């Protein structure tokens, strides 16, 4: 079971702030691809964190049960 959290414009597309996904044994990139498809996120730009740490290389990151993934788009308002 993975926990995924959404922020900013990403949360608007997903219409939820977070969810639990019954997935396992996939790379971070695979998860991102699934979410992009599911919620039509391709047009958005965001960074990704796992367990409160930013991750740059999504392909080589293998997710484990209870990992918390966060999709962080940049905010621009001021």
């Amino acid at each position, binding site marked *: 079971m993975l926990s995924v959290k959404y922020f900013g414009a990403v949360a608007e597309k997903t219409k939820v702030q977070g969810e639990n996904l019954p997935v396992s044994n996939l790379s971070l990139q695979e998860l991102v691809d699934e979410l992009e498809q599911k919620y039509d996120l391709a047009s958005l730009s965001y960074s990704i964190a796992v367990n409160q740490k*930013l991750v740059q290389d999504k392909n080589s990151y293998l997710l484990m049960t209870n990992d918390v993934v966060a999709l962080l788009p*940049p905010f621009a308002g*001021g």
Partner: protein
Amino acid sequence: MRYNRQIILPEVGEKGQEKLGHAKVLIIGAGGLGAAILPYLAAAGIGEIGIIDDDSIEISNLQRQVIYKSDAIGKSKALEAKEMALSLNPSIQINAITDTLNAKNAIPLFEYYDIMVDATDNLHTKYLINDACVVTNKPFVYGSIYKFQGQVSVFNYQNGPTYRCLFPDESSNSKNCVDSGVMGISVGIIGMFQANEVLKMVLEIGNVLSGELLIYNMLNNDQQKFDLVKTNTTSISRLDFEKKYNVVENTVLEITANEALEQMENPDVLFLDVRNEEELPKVSLLNSIQIPLSDLEENLDQLDANKTIMVYCQSGIRSKKAVEILKKHPFLKVQSIAGGALKLEEVIAGNAVSI
């Protein structure tokens, strides 16, 4: 005594107050974020605060930019902000800059101040601030809002991560408050978080949000912090910066000695010799002046900017440097003579072949 209530804090004391008094902070943007940041930095006694914004006050600003008055609609934000801050604390210095931050003024400004505060409302300027901070080796306090959520972090602080380490993709099109909407309190809270970072940095107390992104949600008071590390270790030189933002032309305009001499009798042309007095051969030209390269910047008033200035030195290298200097100031019609005085002499003596 004005600062008594903070001086009695062990973390501040007289020493801390002195640090605040010596600090120079630049707030980029006098909108929602700036309106929260400025008063608290002024109140705390930051010795010199710059505020840069070329906007005028509009009625729709007043639901969140709480330092402005209803009867000041139409007036300059930077100037009104300065007046507010000085009437709150007349003992500090406020520099109001009625301009937009751009690639031309960013580096000179950042060189002057110790800490920059990003109170802007667009991504492009955030990347510009980041790059200029990397060039000048200064930290900046990042803040941004999206509806009821805000982000805060401190970048380029003591060799910490930069904004590009967090958001390397510059192509994003995140919306600002005009498009998405915002409550005054939301942008106010984030601005105060930013002011808090500035004070921690100046006083050297607490934990600065360097290497950490704070995301705060006003609707449920959820606060999250995400760790980030420095990924982008390449430094940017001033030249790289200027090339990237197209500040100066990449190639120095060069013309041949032949072409230059064709203009010998043209009264709109001025020949500038940037060698030292004692260097030979002297080239005899009607409309000419000699200013050694090392003295050039201080003597620009001797040059008529309306003329086309053709610069030469001994062989064509120093003259290119001179052209770069002149273009920055800005002289628009400047050219460097390839081959310098040596080539000119050759051509004049009739021995030259066109290059």
